């Protein structure tokens, strides 16, 4: 009885390992293909039957792709936008989270549910009039439309997430501070902010990803190439270089790499963030 059980267990584990190995291989292959294609010249890329490894490795593709467009500038632009948006979302949505969880004020419930109920609205409904409003205000072809919303609470989701997190922090802390005569601002900034670190990290990472990957907003607002972000520049790459797959793959790898680095540094918060999304929603 015990014997057969151990055998069954071993069979089960062997099957699982095999499946996991196959799946991991399949998930990894596209990464390999991106790098492999980035290091080949056109002749190697279009050889048939397919050539798997670059031979010789065309290292020049990387600097050539980088120099074919001002990528350093696009990187700097994206970086500035990321910093501005992360700071805005972290500060203003945690403030809103505080007001919607801790403070008692007229209109709180109504506004909170109004905010929540708009999460299902398709982006296109607000995108079109927002575009027209910004254009009328003369903000077309500037970064203003890409930054200002982050300083006004970020998204309904970010406000919701920080409110939910505030609800898990014991009230005794701010009650004690209130008795000691601390102001609301002091309670929020000095006492609660440090405790909020996990959710702030999650907000920061989501905003970072959102800004780094955003295509639609830069695409509709920016026309001057000097203001382009990496994603937009990459999307536009195919115009003049429609067939230059070596450059395109090199550029894709360059845009992907920082994201992967950030992931491995802050891995814990990525997973935490998604888990929070799934559970709190």
């Amino acid at each position, binding site marked *: 009885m015990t014997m057969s059980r151990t055998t069954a267990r071993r069979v089960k584990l062997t099957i*699982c390992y095999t499946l996991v190995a196959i799946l991991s291989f399949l998930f990894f292959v596209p990464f390999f293909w991106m790098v492999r294609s980035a290091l080949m010249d056109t002749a190697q890329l279009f050889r048939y039957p397919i050539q798997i490894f670059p031979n010789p490795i065309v290292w020049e593709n990387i600097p050539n792709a980088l120099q074919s467009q001002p990528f350093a500038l696009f990187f700097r632009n994206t970086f500035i936008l990321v910093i501005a948006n992360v700071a805005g979302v972290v500060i203003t949505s945690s403030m809103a989270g505080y007001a919607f969880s801790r403070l*008692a004020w007229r209109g709180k419930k109504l*506004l909170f549910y109004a905010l929540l109920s*708009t999460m299902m609205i398709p982006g*296109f409904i607000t995108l079109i009039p927002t575009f027209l409003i910004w254009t*009328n205000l003369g903000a077309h072809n500037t970064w203003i439309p890409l930054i200002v919303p982050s300083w006004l609470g970020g998204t309904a989701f970010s406000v919701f997430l920080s409110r939910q997190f505030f609800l898990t922090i014991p009230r005794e802390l701010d009650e004690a501070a209130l008795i000691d005569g601390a102001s609301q601002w002091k309670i929020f900034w000095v006492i609660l902010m440090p405790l909020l670190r996990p959710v702030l990290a999650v907000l920061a990472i989501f905003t970072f990803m959102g800004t780094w990957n955003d295509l639609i907003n830069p*695409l509709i607002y920016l026309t001057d190439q000097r203001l382009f972000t990496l994603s937009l520049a990459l999307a536009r790459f195919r115009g003049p270089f429609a067939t230059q797959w070596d450059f395109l793959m090199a550029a894709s790898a360059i845009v992907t790499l920082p994201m992967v680095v950030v992931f491995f540094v802050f891995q814990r918060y990525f997973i935490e963030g998604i888990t929070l999304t799934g559970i709190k*929603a």
Partner: protein
Amino acid sequence: MSTKTAAFKPPSRKLFKRNEIWGWLFAGPAIIGFLGFTLGPMIASIYLSMTDSSLGFDGNWIGMAHYARIFTAEPFIWISVRVTLTFVAIAVPMHIITAFFIAVLLNTEGLKGLKYWRTIAYVPSIVPGVASMFLWRWIMNPRGLLNAALESVGIPGQNWFFDEFWVLPAIAFMGIWGIGGNMVIYLAGLQGVPRSYYDAIEVDGGGIFSKFRYCTLPMMTPVIFFTIIMGIIGGLQTFIPALLVTEGGPNNASLFYGWHIYRTAFINFNMSYAAALSWIMFLVILAITAIVFATSKHWVYYEGGESK
């Protein structure tokens, strides 16, 4: 899922006097943002959709004419609705079943290196959308890696993105690479299933299959329900693959409704008509979500009785 959320304690009235001013100050930026970037534009969008403007708010009032046109004289509406619904019907089950299968696999007890396997499955989902679209376009080109791999085992390759039949399955297929987010949500759910339930099934002589069918699956239905809803809402708004890979082709076979809105607004600059199109999209999303919600009481299991 609400069971996991911390219970909301009403403020103790004695200590917390009403904080009218502080409340509005702290929530102020978010309220301005809500009015300026959500509620305001929504109202503006309704107005816009009832004018004939091309690129501003200065058009003439035409009432419901755009909406009438959508239902009677719009050549692309039915094509794009059919394409979008077909895509959702392919992509949502494909992604959810794959993500669920991988999550269950990567939750197997006794499997070594789980942390690393999970990372490998998750990392692709952080690849920037533009990069991943180009990568898959390259892998799935007629003489690309996918066809070479298929042909090496005797399956004929396809013209994925250039074939009316294959284009939607192909777009759904490349999305599998990005299912890491759903996988993590499922993993969190699977880890919340109490061990004792499995032990009870074991005592009753049940095997792997019974455990999965009578414990794992029912316990996971709330999470699956959540991901289905999110998948449908996201899927109905798909347009980036059309923007970057297919441009709606071949022969309109990937004419996503979202792409139709995008090109109407930002390529053909018919903003008012695009606004009307986007409200129809909202109604469709609302209707489909409502239908899925209505089915949920027959298959979604909430521990501790009805959903709250």
